[in-house]
């Protein structure tokens, strides 16, 4: 088996047994990036020199018997995480020359675990997009078919992980940005409960929704990454002070008697019938594994996308006010006064989608409109969360599609923002409620990957990983990779 086909547990075992070194493994992945990424465009920055230094340090740790499960494992980090001394662009011209002066907590934790960072992955600008086409650095291509989008906003991470250009990657998910690209690229993507992973140093888009998580080839790999990423951080005021369980320990639990809720709203209008069939086949597999299926209703799900496009833009307009051309980031040439400096720096630094969302947010928050938009959206958000709370009185997990369609063609939806927003009809409600959600690969449709979404109760990540792992023990869909890589 080639090194890039091995799971993280297999790589860790190989490193400990000295079958290969982290330097060799890292070089192997760097060669793969050099060979394939001109086509895929999944990395914005490849940090070759630093990666090899980290690999050598990991080899020394392993030699000294001080290795953890991620020591020496080459990972790709979404370019939304601040990395000390390394460009952190967030996919934007605004931050094209921004060298982060500190590490995000997530990055710090990976460093402490001895993981190797291969580079920073491409993404929709400021994580605003569902196809990775809003990046200042150009679109990412889906390794399963390079005419197709990889999904977004963590599209670079998904494409890199799918093409085996890294052992695993990180993403962030504000409305589906981990689960949807994972679905479109045949990967396992986990968005944990809001507050589970520190947001410190993760460039903010919508602070009440943003959450980081792993994008991997299996639930087992996801458990290993989450173990390192999760935990309380005093530097993030919304970080949850909840104990972190042993995510690997519960992976093998039996699913007998597991109650799966199927919301009828997830199988209605807008869902591609072929995707529906693939999801139903996966549910049948769960029945064979001993699970019981219960039909449930999330009556307010149809309001999730409308409410999200108030809450997210409102928070974005506030968060992105910091990009003013004064302290860091792009500054326009020859400003004639302070207002001109602000307006032109922002006008030149931001792309069209980011501008649209800032404007929608500024409008929704402006005098006279606040009650009709922002307050109303926060109330609708409560209705959506209550729907889930009622459902979890009856079921252990909720399942449905992660995305209404398989990957679409590059350019297909770029002229119609509202059509693009509807790519996330099944993922957005989970962020509004703050719940954990996953996407795992099921049977593809016409060679295009399909993702099954699994939604859990608050802080029930261990169960989600267990439910995903047992399916992956019984099936082979997650082992499939794109041809040519």
């Amino acid at each position, binding site marked *: 088996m080639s090194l890039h086909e091995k799971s993280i547990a297999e790589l860790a075992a190989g490193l400990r047994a000295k079958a290969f070194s982290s330097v060799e493994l890292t070089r192997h992945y760097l060669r793969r990036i050099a060979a394939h990424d001109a086509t895929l465009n999944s990395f914005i920055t490849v940090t070759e020199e630093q990666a090899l230094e980290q690999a050598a340090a990991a080899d020394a740790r392993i030699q000294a018997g001080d290795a953890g499960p991620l020591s020496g494992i080459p990972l790709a980090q979404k370019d939304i995480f601040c990395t000390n001394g390394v460009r952190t662009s967030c996919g934007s011209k605004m931050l094209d020359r921004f060298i982060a002066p500190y590490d995000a907590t997530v990055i710090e934790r990976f460093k402490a675990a001895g993981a190797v960072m291969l580079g920073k992955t491409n993404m929709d600008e400021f994580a605003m997009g569902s196809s990775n086409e809003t990046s200042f650095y150009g679109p990412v291509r889906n390794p399963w078919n390079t005419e197709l989008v990889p999904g977004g906003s963590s599209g670079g991470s998904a494409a890199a992980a799918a093409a085996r250009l890294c052992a695993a990657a990180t993403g962030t998910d504000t409305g589906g940005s981990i689960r949807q690209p994972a679905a479109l690229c045949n990967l396992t993507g986990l968005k944990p409960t809001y507050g589970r992973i520190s947001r410190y140093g993760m460039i903010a888009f919508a602070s009440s929704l943003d959450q980081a998580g792993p994008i991997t080839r299996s639930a087992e790999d996801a458990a290993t990454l989450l173990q390192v990423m999760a935990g309380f951080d005093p530097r993030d005021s919304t970080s949850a002070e909840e104990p972190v369980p042993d995510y690997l320990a519960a992976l093998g639990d039996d699913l007998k008697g597991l109650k799966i809720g199927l919301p009828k709203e997830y199988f209605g209008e807008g869902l591609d019938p072929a995707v529906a069939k693939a999801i139903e086949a996966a549910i049948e597999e769960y029945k064979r594994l001993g699970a019981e299926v219960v039909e449930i209703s999330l009556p307010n799900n149809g309001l999730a996308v409308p409410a999200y496009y108030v809450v997210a833009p409102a928070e974005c307009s506030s968060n992105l006010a910091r990009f003013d*051309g004064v302290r860091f980031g792009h500054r326009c040439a020859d400003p004639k006064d302070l207002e001109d400096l602000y307006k032109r720096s922002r*006008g030149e630094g931001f792309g069209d989608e980011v501008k649209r969302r800032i404007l929608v947010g500024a409008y929704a928050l402006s005098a006279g409109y606040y009650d009709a938009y922002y307050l109303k959206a926060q109330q609708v958000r409560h209705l959506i969360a209550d729907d889930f709370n009622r459902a979890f009185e009856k079921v252990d997990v909720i399942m449905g599609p992660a995305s209404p369609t398989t990957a679409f063609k590059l350019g297909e939806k770029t002229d119609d923002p509202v059509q693009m927003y509807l790519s996330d009809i099944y993922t957005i409600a989970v962020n509004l409620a703050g719940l954990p959600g996953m996407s795992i690969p099921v049977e593809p449709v016409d060679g295009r990957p399909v993702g099954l979404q699994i939604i859990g109760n608050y802080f029930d990540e261990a169960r989600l990983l267990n439910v995903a792992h047992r399916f992956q023990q019984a099936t082979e869909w997650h082992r499939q990779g794109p041809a040519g890589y």
Partner: protein
Amino acid sequence: MPLDKADVEKIAHLARLAVSEEALEGVAGDLSNILDLVEQMGAADTSGVEPMAHPLHMAQRLRPDAVTETDLRDRFQSIAPQTEDGLYLVPRVVE
């Protein structure tokens, strides 16, 4: 609610965002479509529903009022567009 070019100019000013004259009409159309989507919320009866500001209904945590960060001014200013004597420079505001 449909927005026109004048509305976009006003919002863009509030957001301190330059939008070129040629782009105004397209932006007005896009924003109008987005607001049409958003206004589907109107169908929900939310009378008496508490607005949800935090997904876990957590209160803001407080920390002791003590200095915990070290002074990194030089480091932070090294990535600024223009500084002088430890200050950020902007065009003259007061004549």
